[in-house]
């Protein structure tokens, strides 16, 4: 008797609709940020009091605001500012955080202790509160918001990068390099930094969504991008007063923020899985 056993778990090339959708979403956002005129139906700052607070119509897909500006076009034009703040803050935080973290691991005990105790103090504050503190010192504005958000995220990256660097430092290949007579600086740039970095970058990919959300929150509080520049957070804040008469004013920018954050998370999580080699699976 010859029997054919079907495999218990067959390797399936799973299509991931969520991932595809997230990439498409990010592509649209990138397009809106780079060439907003391609997607917008009107200029973001054309005031038209005659059609103020107009409902949804083919002409104004998201309606208009209290000054008669097209909400859809303002959302499109607002993408650049939101993305710039989100990406800028994350990039800044990763660069500074990774450098400090790897340095803390590579330098002596005293430097390490100092850096780690400072991050302990900073991590004790909620991130947004820390950002608010920085803005209180620097003053509101898009650039200052970026710096503030970066400051809030840096301690986390310092910790992560230090941990990774310590793992690398204990690895067989770093010991091997010592035995081969490579200098400390050579080992730092040749082995520790390049091997500690990928997991940190993977984490940052997920973090972009968080930064995006935080930037919208700060703008909502009136601390980020200043009017009349279109920005998602400040649009939410402006539309708040008209919630019962023109709900589209807050709901649509809110939906876009939510969608953008989710897209960032999904893509970021996938990138992280690839970085960490989980995507390859199976033996």
């Amino acid at each position, binding site marked *: 008797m*010859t029997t*054919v056993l079907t495999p218990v778990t067959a390797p399936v090339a799973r299509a991931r609709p969520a991932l595809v959708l997230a990439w498409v979403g990010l592509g649209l956002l990138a397009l809106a940020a780079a060439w907003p005129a391609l997607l917008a139906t009107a200029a973001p700052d054309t005031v038209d009091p005659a059609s103020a607070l107009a409902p949804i119509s083919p002409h104004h897909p998201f309606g208009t605001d209290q000054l008669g500006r097209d909400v859809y076009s303002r959302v499109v034009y607002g993408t650049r500012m939101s993305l710039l703040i989100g990406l800028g803050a994350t990039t800044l935080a990763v660069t500074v955080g990774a450098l400090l973290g790897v340095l803390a691991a590579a330098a002596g005990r005293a430097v390490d202790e100092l850096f780690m105790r400072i991050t302990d103090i900073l991590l004790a504050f909620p991130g947004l509160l820390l950002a608010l503190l920085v803005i209180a010192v620097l003053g509101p504005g898009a650039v200052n918001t970026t710096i503030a958000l970066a400051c809030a995220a840096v301690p986390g990256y310092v910790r992560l990068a230090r941990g990774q660097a310590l793992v690398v430092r204990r690895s067989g290949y770093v*010991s*091997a390099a010592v*035995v081969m*007579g490579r200098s400390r600086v050579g080992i730092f740039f040749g*082995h520790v930094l390049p091997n500690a970095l990928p997991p940190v970058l993977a984490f940052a990919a997920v973090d972009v969504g968080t930064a995006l959300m935080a930037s919208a929150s700060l703008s909502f509080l009136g601390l980020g991008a200043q009017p009349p520049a279109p920005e998602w957070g400040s649009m939410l804040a402006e539309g708040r007063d008209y919630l019962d008469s023109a709900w589209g004013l807050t709901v649509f920018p809110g939906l876009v923020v939510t969608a953008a954050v989710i897209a960032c998370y999904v893509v970021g999580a996938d990138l992280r899985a690839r970085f960490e080699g989980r995507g390859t699976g199976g033996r």
Partner: protein
Amino acid sequence: MDDEVVSVAGLHVTYRVGRAEVFAVRGVDFHLRAGECLAIVGESGSGKSTVARALVGLTGPGARLRSDRLVVSGQELSRLGDREWRRIRGAQVGLVLQDALTALDPLRTVGAEVAEAARNHGLVRRGEVARRVHRLLTDVQVPQPELRARQYPQQLSGGLRQRALIAAAMAADPPVLVADEPTTALDVTLQAKLLDLLAARKAAGTAVLLISHDLSVVALLADRVAVMRDGEFVETGCTADVLRAPEHPYTRQLLAATPSAHARGARLAGPRSTPARTRTPRPSGVLARVREVSKTFRGPGGARLAAVSEVSFSLSAGEILGVVGESGSGKSTLAHLLLGLLEPDTGTIELFGQPWSGVPEARRQRGRVQWVQQDPLGSFDPRYRVGRLIAEAGVDRARVRELLDQVGLDPAMADRHPRTLSGGQRQRVAIARALARDPEVIVCDEPVSALDVSVQAQILDLFADIRADLGTALVLISHDLAVVHHVADRVLVMRAGTVVESGPVTEVFARPTHPYTAQLIAALPRPGDAYAAHPEGVA
């Protein structure tokens, strides 16, 4: 044959790799009776573990299994679903895996782990679980079973963990025990104890399927041997016959590669493939002097644990010094001290007539003492290719090619990634890297313990060639006495951080003065004389 517990015929297992189908097992037949032990011997990739896993339905995702017969305890297994397999595993077939640390759940106590099979199959009532666990642990000679059952796997030594794993496999009293490389991670003395345990199970009527790469281990336990290569049994027969008069050339090759089967110093893997080089003249004399060196580490609870205490020895130019001992005996700490990766707490190390311990890094002549680690892949930066790995020692491309050629690798391999190389090739790359700066001493820390016998034979031959050609002194650290006996000139026997015995290899092995050395030598399996214990091997 009524008493056949396991009967397998025409077993094929294929794996899908991308679009292609790869055969892991092609057409294997065997049977096992109660109280009998069949050993499947082969090197990595031969498919021996796949056969073992087929008996418990764990061939993994992507595997396709086809068989004419796959019967355990009268039950045909080849059509079982997941739920039915769960009734077989543990109850009919117990599985002992190689790596006890990863096979045991770190979040559960040893007792819970051992009881699991018995509990899953509803064999014990709740109140009796503790008694059952106690009995099982006693059966596998775990001392203080009450205490051990309450501990977690990571609190147990390797030998105890492996015993707990056997207890777990035996918990539901399965008539068949499958042991996949059960002793590979263990030292000789532990290995001997573990084989005794398996022999006791066998005597109690359990059929044992033993999977191993080591013919000498097999000789102690198996009634019959099947030699496996490329998914097929190339030779099967009663253990004594196969070991004494192997018929298949592959079996002969495997036997020849086993160090203890040879006269000391004889080539293990056939005549050398690379031409002999003219020996570079080297100054003779003493290269290293280690004087009463001690090193302690902070243990749990702040206690200082002595890893190495008061060790003294010297190393002469062109000498191969073997360092033998069980895991935890301080061998690797000694290697790190010699390499200047650790500083001794007390005592001094002198290399090449100059102080080596307690000097600033800049004063050390790093190129003169090099290192080969146990796990070559771990000693390579994961981003580097072979050429860059060797060039990191500070040599140019031409020298890299020359070095690759010298260790018997194709110079074109410089562009390959180490991950795409076999274990033996990786270790050759590591040796090429160690040779790059033409060192006078190479410290080899368990350089062959992760390799198959035939590959181990090639690497040991390579070490002999390096010493003959270049006059390099080697410190060969190994838990394997046979390896040290084969290539070393002198030997240090270490135990709990101290050197209990040292001297020329032939003398120490012939007339051990310390009881521990005698015990180690007695525990050494030898394929040549072990089957006396099994005169009635049945084919």
